[in-house]
C-alpha cells in the first residue's frame, strides 16, 4: 500500500470513530458464518468422494449420493459457498474502511446475502438432483446462471459506488477490488452462457479453459491479493515495501492472467498456435508473481516476529509461500514436456488443492481469525485451538499436495508405458489412502475452528444499548 494509505491520509482517531458506523458488523459475521458452513459441507463432500477411491464408499448405489455429483458439490461448494461468502464478508469490512463510506445500501447488502445463499443452496441441490451443466466450475444448473449473474452485478454496484465516490489516490487494495468486480461479471457471463448456447466443439473448449482459469485468476486472485494489500500493512503497521512493485504486480497480472486459459487443454484439438501462446503467457505470469512475492516478503523484513505473534499474518504468509510454490509449479507444468506426463493425473488435483485451499483458503481463514474477534467485540475463546487449526490445516494441505504430486507422476509414467489401466489404479491406491488421511487432518482442523468460532460467539460480551460498540480492538490479535 502506498504510504498515503494505512497511516497517513486518515488520522487514526477519525478512522476508529467512524469505522464503527461504517461497517455493518452483523453482515460481516453472517457472511463468515455462511462461508464456514459451506466450507464444512464442501470438505465433507470431498472426504466422501475420496472414499470412493478406496473402494469404501459408504452409500454405494444410492442415487442421491452418486459420488460424481458429490464431487461437484465439493468444488462448487468451495468456490461459491466458502470462498465467495468469505470474500463478501471481508469486503464488507475492508471497503467501507478504505473508502470511509458505507456500502451503497445496507438493505441491498442483506438482500444480496440471502439471494446468494439461495443460489448456493439451489446449486448444490440442483447438482445432487442431476441437473449439472458440463462445464468445470460452471456446473451450476443452467436456470440458476442468470440469477447468479444478477447477484454478481448487484455486488459490484454495492461496492463500486462508494469506491467511485472516494477522492484522492486509491489504496492498492482498491485497484484489485475494482478490477475484480468487473472481471467477475464478465467471466461468469462468458463461461456460463457462451459454451452452452452459442459456441460448440473445440472452440467452446477454449472458452471453457478460459473460464476455469479466469475464475481463479480474475475473481479469486485479485480479491485475495486485494485483501493482502489491505490486511498486511494494517497488522504489521508499516507500508508495503515498494509502491513500484505493487504497480508492476497489478498491471502484470491484469495483462497476462486472462491470456492463459487454453493451457488447461494442451495437446487438445484446439489450434496449436493458441496453445503455444498460452504457454508463453503462463510463464510470464510467474515473473509477475515473483515481483509481488518479493514485495510482500520485503515488507515483513524486520517484523518477522509477527509470524509467531500474529495468527493472521502466519496464515497470510504461509499462503504466500504456497502461492509462490503453485505458480512456480505452473511455469513448469504448462510446458508441453511436462504436459505429456502430468496432464489428466492427480498431479493437477494436488496443484488445484494447493491453489484454492492452500493459498486462498488460507488467506480467507487468516482474515477470519482477524475479523471474528473484531466483529464480535470479543477475544478468541481459545488461541490454542486456533493454533491447532493452523497446524493441522497446514500440515494436511502440504501432505496432500506432495502425495498427489507423486501419485500424478506414477500415473503419468505408467500410462505412457502402456501399463494395464487396472495396474495404474492399484499403484495409485496407497496415495489415495494418504490423501484421505491428509483430508481428515484438514477436516479436524476446520471443525476445531468451527467450535472455537461458536464458543467465541457464545461468550461474546453483550452489546451495550447506549453507546455504539467501540471499535477499539486489541492491537494484536490473539496469539498462539
Amino acid at each position, binding site marked *: 500500500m502506498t504510504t498515503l494509505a494505512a497511516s497517513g491520509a486518515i488520522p487514526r482517531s477519525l478512522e476508529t470513530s467512524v469505522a464503527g458506523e461504517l461497517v455493518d458488523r452483523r453482515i460481516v459475521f453472517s457472511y463468515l458464518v455462511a462461508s464456514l458452513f459451506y466450507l464444512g459441507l464442501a470438505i465433507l463432500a470431498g472426504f466422501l468422494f475420496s472414499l470412493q477411491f478406496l473402494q469404501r464408499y459408504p452409500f454405494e448405489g444410492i442415487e442421491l449420493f452418486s459420488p460424481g455429483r458429490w464431487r461437484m458439490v465439493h468444488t462448487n461448494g468451495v468456490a461459491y459457498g466458502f470462498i465467495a461468502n468469505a470474500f463478501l464478508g471481508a469486503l464488507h469490512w475492508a471497503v467501507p474502511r478504505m473508502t470511509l463510506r458505507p456500502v451503497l445500501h445496507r438493505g441491498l447488502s442483506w438482500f444480496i446475502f440471502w439471494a446468494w445463499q439461495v443460489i448456493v443452496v439451489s446449486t448444490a441441490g440442483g447438482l445432487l438432483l442431476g441437473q449439472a451443466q458440463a462445464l468445470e466450475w460452471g456446473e451450476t444448473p443452467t436456470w440458476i446462471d442468470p440469477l447468479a449473474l444478477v447477484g454478481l452485478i448487484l455486488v459490484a454496484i454495492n461496492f463500486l459506488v462508494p469506491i467511485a465516490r472516494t477522492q484522492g489516490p486509491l489504496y492498492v487494495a482498491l485497484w484489485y477490488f475494482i478490477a475484480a468486480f468487473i472481471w467477475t461479471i464478465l467471466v461468469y457471463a462468458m463461461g456460463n452462457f457462451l459454451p452452452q448456447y452459442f459456441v460448440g466443439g473445440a472452440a467452446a473448449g477454449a472458452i471453457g479453459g478460459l473460464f476455469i482459469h479466469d475464475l481463479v485468476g480474475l475473481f479469486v486472485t485479485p480479491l485475495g491479493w486485494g485483501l493482502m494489500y489491505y490486511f498486511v500493512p494494517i497488522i504489521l503497521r508499516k507500508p508495503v515495501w515498494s509502491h513500484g512493485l505493487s504497480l508492476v504486480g*497489478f498491471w502484470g497480472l491484469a495483462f497476462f492472467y486472462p491470456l492463459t486459459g487454453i493451457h488447461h487443454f494442451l495437446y487438445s484439438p484446439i489450434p496449436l498456435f493458441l496453445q503455444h501462446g498460452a504457454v508463453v503467457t503462463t510463464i510470464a505470469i510467474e515473473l509477475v508473481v515473483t515481483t509481488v512475492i518479493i514485495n510482500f516478503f520485503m515488507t515483513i523484513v524486520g517484523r518477522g516476529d509477527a509470524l509467531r505473534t500474529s495468527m493472521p499474518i502466519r496464515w497470510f504468509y504461509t499462503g504466500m509461500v504456497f502461492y509462490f510454490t503453485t505458480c512456480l509449479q505452473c511455469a513448469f507444468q504448462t510446458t508441453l514436456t511436462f504436459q505429456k506426463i502430468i496432464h489428466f493425473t492427480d498431479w493437477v488435483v494436488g496443484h488445484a488443492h494447493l491453489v484454492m485451499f492452500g493459498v486462498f483458503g488460507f488467506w480467507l481463514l487468516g482474515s477470519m481469525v482477524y475479523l471474528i474477534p473484531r466483529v464480535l467485540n470479543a477475544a478468541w475463546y481459545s488461541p490454542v485451538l486456533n493454533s491447532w487449526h493452523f497446524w493441522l490445516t497446514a500440515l494436511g494441505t502440504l501432505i496432500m499436495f506432495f502425495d498427489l504430486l507423486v501419485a500424478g507422476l506414477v500415473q503419468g509414467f505408467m500410462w505412457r508405458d502402456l501399463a494395464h489401466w487396472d*495396474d495404474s489404479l492399484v499403484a495409485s491406491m496407497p496415495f489415495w489412502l494418504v490423501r484421505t488421511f491428509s483430508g481428515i487432518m484438514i477436516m479436524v482442523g476446520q471443525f476445531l475452528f468451527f467450535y472455537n468460532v461458536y464458543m467465541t460467539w457464545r461468550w461474546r460480551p453483550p452489546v451495550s444499548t447506549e453507546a455504539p460498540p467501540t471499535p477499539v480492538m486489541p492491537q494484536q490479535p490473539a496469539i498462539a
Partner: protein
Amino acid sequence: MFESKSGIFFVAGLGFFGLSFLVMAVLPWTIYAGEKELDLNELAVRGITHEFVDLAERYPEQFKKHFGEVSYESFSEALRIGHRAYVAEACWHCHSQFVRPVSNEDLRWGPVSHALEYQNVLQRPVLFGTRRVGPDLIREAARRSNDWHVAHFWKPTSVAPASVMPSYRWFFDAEGYPNKKGMAIITYIQWLGSWLEEYPYFHGEGPDVAAPAPKEGAS
C-alpha cells in the same frame, strides 16, 4: 492511468479482458465458425450402431417400453438421454474425451482426436474433461460388449477388480434390467468413436491393426 479508477476500470477491467476474449475465445471461434455443428438428427442418420440394435434384441420388452422401435428417432433420443446422464453423473470428471498425440495414447485408445469430431450438439459444452481416473472414452464404441457394460455399471469391480468407478444401480429397473437411462448411457458410450472410418478396428479386433502401420515418411 495506472492508479486512477477509470484507468483500472476501463483499461485493466474491460480492456485487458476484452483483449484476452478476442485472442482466446473469438479467434478459435472464428476458425471453426464455418464448420457446421451437427444436431441430433444429423448424428443419428450418420449411422445407428450395432450395439443399439443389440440392446433391442437382448431386452425386447424393456426396449419397446422405453424406446419403441429401432429408428433414427429412438436412436437420437437414446443419445440425448445418455449424454444427459453422462453430464449429470459427472462421468466427465473421471473420464476424458480426447486422445492426445503424445504418451502413446494412440496405441492405447486409437486415432488422435480431431477438432471436427467435436462439432456437434452432444459436445456442448465440450466434454474434453480434465482428469482421467478411468480411461479415455472417445474411442469406447464397440471396445466392449453391451453385456460387459451392463455388468460394469451394476458393479464395476465385477469386471475390473481394482476399479474405483461408482456402481450405478439406478441405471437398472426393479428386475435388474437396464432401465431407460441405463440403455441410453450404454448407447451413448457405445457410440463414442463410431463415426471414424477405422471403427471398430482401432481396438485391434480387425486384421492386424493392433500394431499401427509405420508412419509414412518417418525416418
